Every structure is written in C-alpha cells, then in structure tokens.
C-alpha cells in the first residue's frame, strides 16, 4: 500500500498534568474512512487538533504523504489539503453562511469579493448535504445547531481537500441529514478522499467506517475492521471493561 495521506507517529499532548494524548499512532489513506471513537475526554478532539494544525503536539510527528510536516496553523494544514470540521464548528456567529463558508478562501473578482459566485456555490454545497437553511445570507447566529453543523461540514468540502477530518460531525444532525452525511462520506471515499471522523454513535460509525480506532484515556485501545467487529467488542474497548 502507498504511504498514508495523513499520519501521526508517536504523538503526545498534555494540558498541564492532564495527558490528553499518549504516544498515538494513526494513519488515514486515500479511499478510506477511519472512525475514532472513545468516551468523553478520551482525547478525540485533541487528536483532531493535532491532525489539522489547531494545536501542535508536544511530542511525535505529523506526516503528510509519508514526510514529516509542522502544522503550525490550520491554514498550513489547509494548504496541504487537510480540511477540518471542529467540534466547536469554528464558525463566526456574526458572519452569514456564505461568508463563513468562504472565510479565508474568498472568491474574488479583481480586488473585490465575488459574492455572486460564492453565493451560488454555497447553495450547491448545502444542497449536497440536504441542509435546510432559511437563507445563505442570514448570520450563523440565527441558525440551529444542526444547520450550523451542516455549514461547517460544507465548508470543509470547499476546494477539494485530500483528507477531511471531522470531529463529531453528526452530533447535532437530524435523521435525514445524518443519512445524507453518511452517503456523502461514502461518495468522498469513492472519489478518493481520505476521511477521518470521530463519533459517539457506534451505529453511524459501523455504517460508514472501514477502520475503527478506539481511544481510551489518551491512548489507542485497539484498531478494528469495521466489517468484522461487533457492537459489543467496540463497547468493551471504549469502556475498558474486560469480558
């Protein structure tokens, strides 16, 4: 197999005395959906942060196409083709949907912004996710949690990233939107993207993931083939209860 698009090698991160990640290894390949599961505080968001430049690990390396990189900033990661949906969504509540979607990557016509192109494309992106927003010109503050999540997911799809890293992307989504999202993830895999997502929903994870990585207290507690692993086995790995 070729080198993974995105990988962690021996990554650790502490917040003072709290060890959020301890010596974690992880790979995401093209054409692959990796799910990371774990209890609250297991270190999933910290892992996502390390993968996407939101935070710099204390130890270990982040590798893109097999070579070590320093993701000092999310924009650096973005430049390397790594897009992220953060658990807090990282949307600016005072900006409208289009403004948020294109934040930092605005389309321009000459020196000025090209609002028409952005607005048109915004609708296309949101429709892909069956996202229902009243208007793409309302401030994000006026959207529901699920609508905001859809906007954040839509934003990660802009500009054809190679890997998409999503932290609990379905937490606030409705049934239909979750279904559309899972289909979208499958489409992304078919198109050759790598996808890493974290989730608390074992059903979603089993439906879409190829590989499932379990985090427990900041360490990897097993890696499973999604097709061959039962709900009970995953539960045991997450909670650490031996059977």
């Amino acid at each position, binding site marked *: 197999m070729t080198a993974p698009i995105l990988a962690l090698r021996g990554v650790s991160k502490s917040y003072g005395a709290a060890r959020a990640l301890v010596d974690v290894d992880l790979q995401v390949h093209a054409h692959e959906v990796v799910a990371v599961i774990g209890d609250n505080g297991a270190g999933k968001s910290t892992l996502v942060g390390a993968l996407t430049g*939101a935070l710099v690990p204390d130890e270990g390396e982040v590798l893109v196409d097999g070579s070590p990189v320093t993701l000092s*900033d*999310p*924009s650096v990661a*973005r430049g390397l083709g790594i897009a*992220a949906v*953060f658990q*807090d*969504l*990282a*949307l*600016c*509540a*005072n*900006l409208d949907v289009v*403004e*948020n979607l294109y*934040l*930092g*990557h*605005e389309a*321009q016509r000459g*020196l*000025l*912004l090209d*609002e*028409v*192109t952005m*607005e*048109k494309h915004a*609708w296309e992106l949101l*429709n892909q996710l069956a996202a229902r927003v*009243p*208007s*793409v*010109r309302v*401030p994000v*503050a006026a959207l529901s949690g699920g609508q905001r999540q859809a906007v954040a997911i839509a*934003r990660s799809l802009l500009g054809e990233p190679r890997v998409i890293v999503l932290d609990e992307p379905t937490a606030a989504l409705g049934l239909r939107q979750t279904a559309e999202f899972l289909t979208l993830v499958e489409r992304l895999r078919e198109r050759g993207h790598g996808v890493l997502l974290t989730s608390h929903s074992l059903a979603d994870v089993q439906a879409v993931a190829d590989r499932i990585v379990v985090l427990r207290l900041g360490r990897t507690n097993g890696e499973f083939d999604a097709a061959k692993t039962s709900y009970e086995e995953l539960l045991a790995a997450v909670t650490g209860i031996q059977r």
Partner: protein
Amino acid sequence: MTGVDTATGLSAATWQRLRTGDLGVLPVAVVLVLIGLVFQALNPHFLSADNLVNLTQQSAATGVIALGVVLTLHVGQIDLSVGAVSGLAAAVVAVGSVQLGWPLWLAVLAALAVGVLVGSIYAALHTRLAVPSFVFTLAGLLVITGLQMRVLGPTGSVNLPFEWWLVRFCQTAFLAPATSWVIVALVVAGYAAGRVTDRVRRERAGLPVAPLWQVVARVVALAAGLSLVVAYLGTNRGVGAVFALFVGLVALTDLMLRRTRWGRSVRAVGGDAEAARKAGVPVRRVFVSAFVACSTLAALGGVLAVGRLAAANQGSGAGDTNLTAIAAAVIGGTSLFGGRGSAWSALVGILVVQSISTGLTLLNLDQSARLVVTGLVLAVAVTIDALQRRAREA
C-alpha cells in the same frame, strides 16, 4: 433555492434587523435628522447653510480619528490613545516645519510615520504578548502625551503661517461647484452601475434578486440626498476640501470593509478570533492592520487639526478629542463587542456629536452642558449596543 420570499417575511425581518442592529447606521442617521430639527426649532440659525458648512468643516479632523477607532472596535479591540497620537502628530508637523525648517510635506509624512510606528507597537504587544488593548493603549496615552510635551518644548505652542497649503486646505479650500457636481454624478453613476451589474449577474446565476424598483429607489435616493447636500451647502461656501477628504476616506474604508478579503477577515476576527484562526484567517496580520490603520488615521486627524487651527499646542488632541472620537464611533453604531459596525458610523457619529456641540453653543450653553449631553448620548448608544447584542444571542 429561494431566499427571503414573502412581503410579510420581509417586514418581520426588518423589525428583527432593527432589534439586532443589522440596519447599520440608518437608525442613527434618522436620529441625526431629528437632532437637526430640534435645534432648528430652538434656534433658526442651526440649519442655515453657513452653520452647516462650519459644522462639516469642524467634524473632519476628529471624524478621521473616529474612523480609525471604528477599525479597532471592529476587531474587538480599543485604542484609548488616538487623541494623544493626533496631538503628537500635530506637534511633529508644527515643530518639524516651523522650528526645524523641514518642508511641510516631509513634516506631514513624519507625523503619519509616527502613527504607523505607534500602531505597530500596539499590534506587537497585542499579538505577541496578548496584553489587553485597553491597558497598553492607556499606557500609550500617557507616554505619547509626554512625548508631545517634549516635542513642543518650553513654549508649548507653535503657530503655522496662514498661507501654507495645509492651513489653506483645512480652512479655506472648498470644492468648486462644478467639481462637486461632477463628483456627485460620478458617485451616483458608479453606484447605479455596480447595482445593475450585480443584479444582472445574480439573475444569470439563478440567485434571488431584489425587485427592480428597489434598485431604482436606492439610486434615486442617493442622487437626491447628495444633490441636496451639495446644493444647500453650495448656497454658502460649498463642500469643504477637508470634509470631502474625510467622506472619501469613509467611503473607501466602507468599500474595503464590505467588499474585500481584508474587510471580511476584520469582521471575522472581531466576531470570533479563534474561529477565524481555525478557518484559516491570518489573525495576527489582521490585528496589525487594524492597529496600524487606527493610529495612522489618528495621526492624519492630528495633521488636519493643525491645519484647521494653524497651530499645535499642548491642548492638541488632549481631553475631549480622544473621548469625542471614540464616542462618535460608538454613537454611530459600531459595536464595542467587535465584528459589527460600519465605516459610515464615523461620519454619522461625529456629525451627531458635533451637532450637539454646535447646537448647545448656539443656545448659549457652555462646555459643561456639551459634555453632559454628549455623555448621556454615548450612554444611550452603549446601552442600545448591549441590548442589540443580547437580542442577537437570544
């Protein structure tokens, strides 16, 4: 794929926009008109062309400073030293040109460079050390006031000859009527062209468009408004060059805030700096640009003030310049909480403050009344700002 559709949806939306402050400077502009009418009722000289020309001319220098304040407020920061920076800039211009014999343009450039330098220091303190801006700009206020005294030296006051171009530009230069009308025509034509192209492009892209009558109404309103101002001021001395410069700067800043990448990042950083960083906005650079622009505009305001007074002294930029500029930005509707506001709030805000000041003077009330009233208006503006923020979060 429809936007806002029904008529009822629109009017409810308008109310919501008023409550949450999304109507921008419009409500304050209405208040400005009301203030004008009230003072006119109390003193028939208030709305005379002569008084309005004076009023616009007096607004320009502090208005330019307020424009800088609008930018720092936009990124969620504040610069409490703008008055001091303008005072130091004034001192640099006067001392440099009169006492040291520099060419006037060089003294002006030096003053602006002082602004750039001060802004860069603030930006470094904020982005590298994360010191809250109200603290280091307060420190800066003291330091810069001290420097201003040092530059002015023992005499404490330097006069500029009346025939120098800076003084003439700020005191006696007015746009020729023909020039004013050409500018009005160009602005209206440019605005109409922009609106129409935008509408055509939206239609082609299959996006919802505002009804045509709205476009026409806006263009007509703009043309009528500008014509009224130019025609009425034209019955007296006309539009002052320094006021035209101020309005031009406001319009340019407005365009940059609303229609450029930089403006968008400014609003994003002011709304949520961490979210903006995660979205890939160069947050540090945005802070630097805002602080530098603010201090530089403050310095420019100081330069214009020297021209207007034909003198710089220890009182230049002291006390109420600072407060007036900051108050004007807030009264004009730029939020203290960051990420919201408009460049036009500098214009509308300074006109409100200056109208109150002029109006009370015409009523033979002194400085004390002016401070009290302006303070109360500021308090009301801040309260509305806070209420609107709450309405947005509800």
